[in-house]
């Protein structure tokens, strides 16, 4: 009996498997679609991160878009993760010309570290910036500053963000950052900005988003922008609105960077040279 049982089982299952395989085979024959073979090749060149930073649903979708577009349209396609290198490779394969784009990186526009913006109130809720943002102005009291709970770190797929134990702020590893924009979207206070890496890896930006009046802002944070206009005198491109200065990407960091950072009375302007030393 036992032998029979095993044998029946074996035969039944094999039979089912064989029938299913046959059905699948014929269905495949009947509904077979011819996919552009180039899509597979382009997909292999792409980073396969499926992050959606290019604006498409994933790497496959991007590859489809590459094969279907006109030469003019191709110039608009860009994979921020792979960068110019990958785009050139794809352009060579397709016989088109890739537009030259400068590398970009995410920067944190807040300098409210544990030292600069000390903790005043105790937040004991869930460690999510999005929740903390809704129920309080944060432990430092600055209504626009970093909450230091790390939603951006959780969302980064490339390990480019890490919490600096000394400052309590997330820091960007410019080598790993692909400027996919995930941190820009998740931050409830819009503290991240994608900026060009700049000449010789030099960048200058205002590390503050606080729009309060100078005296109030400085109560909570030593390095808050107070809208003193000193930077605007050095470089007329800089605009100051609602007590907050903004340095556009077009300002030459190599030329003005050091001067701007030294002139700023509160230290809200950050100038980064060569290797990334963010939040120092």
């Amino acid at each position, binding site marked *: 009996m036992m032998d029979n049982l095993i044998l029946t089982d074996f035969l039944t299952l094999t039979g089912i498997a064989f029938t299913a395989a046959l059905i699948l085979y014929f269905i495949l024959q009947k509904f077979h679609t011819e996919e552009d073979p180039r899509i597979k090749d382009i997909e292999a060149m792409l980073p396969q991160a499926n992050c959606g930073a290019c604006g498409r649903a994933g790497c496959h979708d991007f590859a489809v878009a590459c094969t279907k577009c006109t030469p003019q349209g191709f110039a608009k396609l860009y994979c921020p993760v792979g960068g110019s290198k990958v785009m050139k490779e794809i352009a060579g394969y397709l016989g088109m010309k890739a537009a030259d784009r400068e590398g970009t990186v995410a920067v944190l526009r807040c300098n409210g570290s544990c030292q600069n913006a000390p903790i005043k*109130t105790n937040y*004991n*809720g869930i460690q999510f910036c999005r929740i903390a943002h809704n*129920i309080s*102005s944060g432990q430092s*009291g600055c*209504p626009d500053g970093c909450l230091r709970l790390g939603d951006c770190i959780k969302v980064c797929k490339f390990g480019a963000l890490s919490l600096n134990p000394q400052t309590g702020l997330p820091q960007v590893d410019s080598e790993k950052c692909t400027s996919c924009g995930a941190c820009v979207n998740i931050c409830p206070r819009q503290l991240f900005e994608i900026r060009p890496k700049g000449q010789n890896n030099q960048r200058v930006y205002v590390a503050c988003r606080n729009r309060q009046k100078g005296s109030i802002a400085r109560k909570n944070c030593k390095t808050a922008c107070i809208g003193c206009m000193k930077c605007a005198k050095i470089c007329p491109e800089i605009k100051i609105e609602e007590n907050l200065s903004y340095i556009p990407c077009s300002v030459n960091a190599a030329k003005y960077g050091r001067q701007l950072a030294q002139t700023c009375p509160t230290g809200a302007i950050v100038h980064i040279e060569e290797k990334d030393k963010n939040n120092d």
Partner: protein
Amino acid sequence: MTKTFPIGGLHPQKHKLASELAIIDAGLPEYVSIPVKQHSGAPAKIVVAKGEKVKAGTLLAAADGIVSAPIHSSVSGEIVNIGLQEGLFGYDEEQITIKVEGNEYAQGIDTSDKIITEIPDDTEEIMQRIRNAGVVGMGGAGYPTPIKTTVPEGKKAEYLIVNGIECEPYLCADDRLMQEKAEEIIIGAKIINKLLGIQKAIIAIDENKPQAIEIMSRLTKRYIGVNVRTCKSKYPQGSEKQLITAITGREVPAAKRPIDIGCIVQNVGTVFAVYEAVMKKKPLFERIVTVSGDTAEKSANFRVRVGTPAEFLINKIGGMTDKTAEIIFGGPFMGTATVNLNTPVTKLTSGILLLSKKSTAKEPETACIRCGKCVDVCPQGLLPFEIARRARNNDFSQLMQLHARDCIECGSCAYTCPARIPLLDYCKISKAEAKKILKKQ
């Protein structure tokens, strides 16, 4: 027979320390700071300038648009500052600061205790008085009452439910109001009845308020159409949707409003404010606030002018003790902890609680054991553990199927969770995400 909603709910300890204490006047602080946004909708437009003298009831800011409400001065004195100040959450909000001088009322306000029973005939006139008085829903949402009492075209109001449940622990403001201003509330309900063009009003009271039930039942015998219904003591019985189900047996469909099934729910505080606005021409500038908590030396129910800083009230009951760890505006379930003692009392502040570390401490979260307790207590019949699991992993693909948008944020799930998972916070994240998805569509 006591009524209740069919699914979910829980029975937290009541802590109604102030239920036996009569409402007392809190008195006048030195300064009041009145926020221009004390309701849902657009902030009111300021119509006064710095240095102007005002009286209690003077219009400070006019309603800006339909979904908005005017703001009135709560004291007499001089305006010393108009500008941004730190509010309840620590964020800046526009406030009008008035230095208190004397205690004068604006012209036309009837400050006597006499009960007026003759309701004006003209419904337009009644509506105008409610609108001018800046009456908003005082249960917490702050939706302007004139809009809520206007029945949209093609819909019919059948039930007016006056919400006297107050299911949150500690809070007794509504309870005391029903005991002391019972007749006014009944007349207020009749006024709203007139606006809606119906004859019936149901006053729903929790069974843990026997005195209020007794007084209300006695008085309603004299008013035709107004009835008292006793509801089972269960949290969150005071939620609009749950109360409608308990009283009428109807269920508010997802993403619909109570008026769609012919119901209108008004808080007893709102109904009292409607009475004062129509009969006494008194704008909404004071309310009842319970100040209590497990670390408060004594509890009290205060009649407070809007704009009074929290610190003034806390000092009235003997100040904070060493054990006070958190100060909460509202109830312990749905209220918010404040970081700023100068936070002014608004039209929506039902209580100020001084809670100890023991009752507010959050224990570390452990893994979900899938016991299903959160599903048992959810009054909306959702799956909090599933919503939380997906929110934690940033997976928002199933939000619509899980009906995250129907969460009423009562916090029953987080309260009951043996693994101490902050389920409510995860549900809030999912809700915000669901709103984003809907906007995109």
